């Protein structure tokens, strides 16, 4: 087991990793930007190192400074959390070369799944169903149109180096596609420094269902069930739940098997999530694989009684997987992401000082947060301030528990998305479990 882990992240996930380390008896090093001097992860870690001014590229994305911090504190491993450098293959590789264990997959695995059009090819070769689309990048408009005619309109143009819902454009017919193609390439170049795009069939009312997988360094890999993340706003997830109302045991088995095949095809180790689109006819298609622990991992923890971050650390330290068979999913869990945004004004970010903070509690209520009364939410980073995860015996109880927990959740001084989440939770379609990824748009 490691002696000391440097957490290359901030906010609630940094605190999450510190908690796992504490239970494993591992010492922790927090790194922080000047904007995070009073952050909880700095206060609760054993050691801390200031690594730069507030902007992420000068701090949390600054590889030399993070490595230097590991060097001067003698850390033997680093956990990248999610976001920032978590899926940066260069960072994983530099860690590998410097003898600092990267708690995650290998640089090569990150790279393979990071290039979205290459990932599709890898999956197709492994026999995992993929969304019908171009075999690799599409270089010009004419080729795009040809592909679209083959697949069938409408199609979506996606950036090869994109992900997380960014760099995507719809082409509903030939003319629309030609226009969208040029714009998509320009956007991809600007956002990801890579203009290559590929074309996929556009599935009209899909559910977003992802499978959590975990592999070790001994060739074992297992799936830990699904999370339904169909409630998204601009491709950013807001609410996640497990089990998915759309899955029965048979479909779960098929999708779980496909996800394991996907991971096994690249010898995947550590935590990962295989995202699928599920259409209304129970067909599922590989969308992308996220080679990191995800924000919504507590949903899986709630229904499997597992600690995924501890498992990540154990696996990275060379231990074998705790579970070899997919666990039974017990009960129902729902997570709500609470962001510092104003839902009444276009979800405009709402940084500032939190003047009052009371988190809900009671049976089956978990809060993962790094904020507290008096905390100043900085404007430099993402707006997630807390995650509410409820667990109950069944879905109706979980819905009720989540709704009432949000009622009890008091955050003053900034705007939050709490009222909006309550609107979603009490919507008849959501209550019926009858949603797709366009649900929020239609509200």
């Amino acid at each position, binding site marked *: 087991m490691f002696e000391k882990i440097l957490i290359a992240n901030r906010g609630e996930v940094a605190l999450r990793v510190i908690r796992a380390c504490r239970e494993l008896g591992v010492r922790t090093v927090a790194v922080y930007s*000047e904007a995070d001097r009073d952050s909880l992860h700095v206060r609760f870690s054993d050691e*801390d190192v*200031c690594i730069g*001014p507030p902007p992420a590229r000068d701090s949390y994305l600054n590889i*030399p*400074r993070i490595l*230097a*911090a590991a*060097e*001067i504190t003698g850390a033997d491993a680093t956990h990248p959390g999610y976001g920032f450098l978590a899926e940066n293959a260069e960072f994983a590789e530099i860690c590998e070369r410097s003898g600092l264990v990267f708690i995650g997959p290998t640089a090569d695995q990150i790279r393979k799944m990071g290039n979205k059009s290459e990932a599709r090819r890898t999956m197709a070769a492994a026999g995992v169903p993929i969304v019908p689309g171009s075999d690799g990048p599409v270089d010009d408009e004419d080729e795009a149109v040809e592909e679209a005619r083959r697949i069938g309109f409408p199609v979506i143009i996606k950036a090869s180096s994109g992900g997380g819902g960014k760099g995507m454009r719809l082409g509903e017919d030939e003319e629309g596609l030609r226009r969208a193609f040029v714009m998509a390439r320009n956007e991809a170049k600007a956002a990801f420094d890579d203009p290559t795009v590929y074309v996929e069939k556009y599935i009209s009312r899909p559910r977003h269902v992802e499978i959590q997988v975990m592999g070790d360094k001994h060739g074992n890999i297992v799936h830990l069930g699904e999370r339904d993340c169909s409630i998204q706003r601009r491709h950013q997830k807001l609410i996640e739940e497990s089990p998915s109302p759309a899955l029965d045991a048979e479909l779960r088995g098929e999708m779980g098997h496909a996800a394991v095949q996907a991971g096994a095809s690249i010898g995947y180790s550590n935590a990962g999530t295989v995202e699928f689109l599920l259409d209304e006819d129970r067909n599922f298609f590989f969308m992308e694989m996220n080679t990191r622990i995800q924000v919504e991992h507590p949903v899986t923890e709630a229904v499997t009684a597992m600690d995924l971050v501890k498992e990540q650390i154990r696996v990275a330290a060379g231990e074998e997987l705790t579970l070899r068979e997919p666990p039974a999913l017990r009960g129902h869990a729902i997570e709500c992401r609470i962001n510092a945004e104003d839902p009444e004004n276009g979800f405009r970010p709402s940084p500032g000082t939190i003047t009052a903070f009371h988190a809900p509690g009671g049976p089956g209520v978990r809060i993962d947060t790094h904020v507290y009364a008096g905390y100043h939410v900085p404007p430099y980073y993402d707006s997630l301030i807390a995650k509410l995860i409820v667990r109950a015996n069944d879905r109706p109880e979980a819905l009720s528990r989540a709704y009432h927990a949000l009622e009890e959740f008091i955050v003053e001084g900034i705007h939050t998305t709490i009222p909006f989440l309550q609107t979603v939770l009490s919507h008849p379609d959501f209550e019926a479990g009858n949603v797709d990824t366009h649900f929020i748009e239609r509200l």
Partner: protein
Amino acid sequence: MFDLDWIRKLIELIEESDLDTLEVSRFGTRIVLSKSPPVSARLSFADGGANPATAVDGARAEARAGVGVEDVSTAADEPSEELLEIHSPMVGTFYRAQAPDAPSYVEVGDQVKVGQTLCILEAMKLMNELESEVTGVVREIPVQNADPVEYGQVLFRIAEDEAG
């Protein structure tokens, strides 16, 4: 990070024990607690970021109780002077000289010029020379040779020369 409650706990610790002196340091912030009466009850934090006002009040209150808090980085009786702080632009290890047996680049009291090398900051086997941005006299070097330093940590305090 040092804060007032933590300092109070240190004071309790030394009062309840037979120790005469207790010294604690991390990242250039050093606190020395001594039962012998102090020359001055001034306390300063060498990390450049903290506001010393509340700490000084606390220190004065504790001095009345018979325990002194002493600043090790400078002579206690200096008249206050406005000093320019040179902050570390990176994370790494601080070295006063080019090599273990070489003379230090600068000493307290030295006159330095813009562009003059003040120290080495090392990270991942790469040596970076830190150059002075000002002309003046080095008054304080609140870090020790081979100390690990973080971004923003105060390395030198320089009395800038008046514009000629």
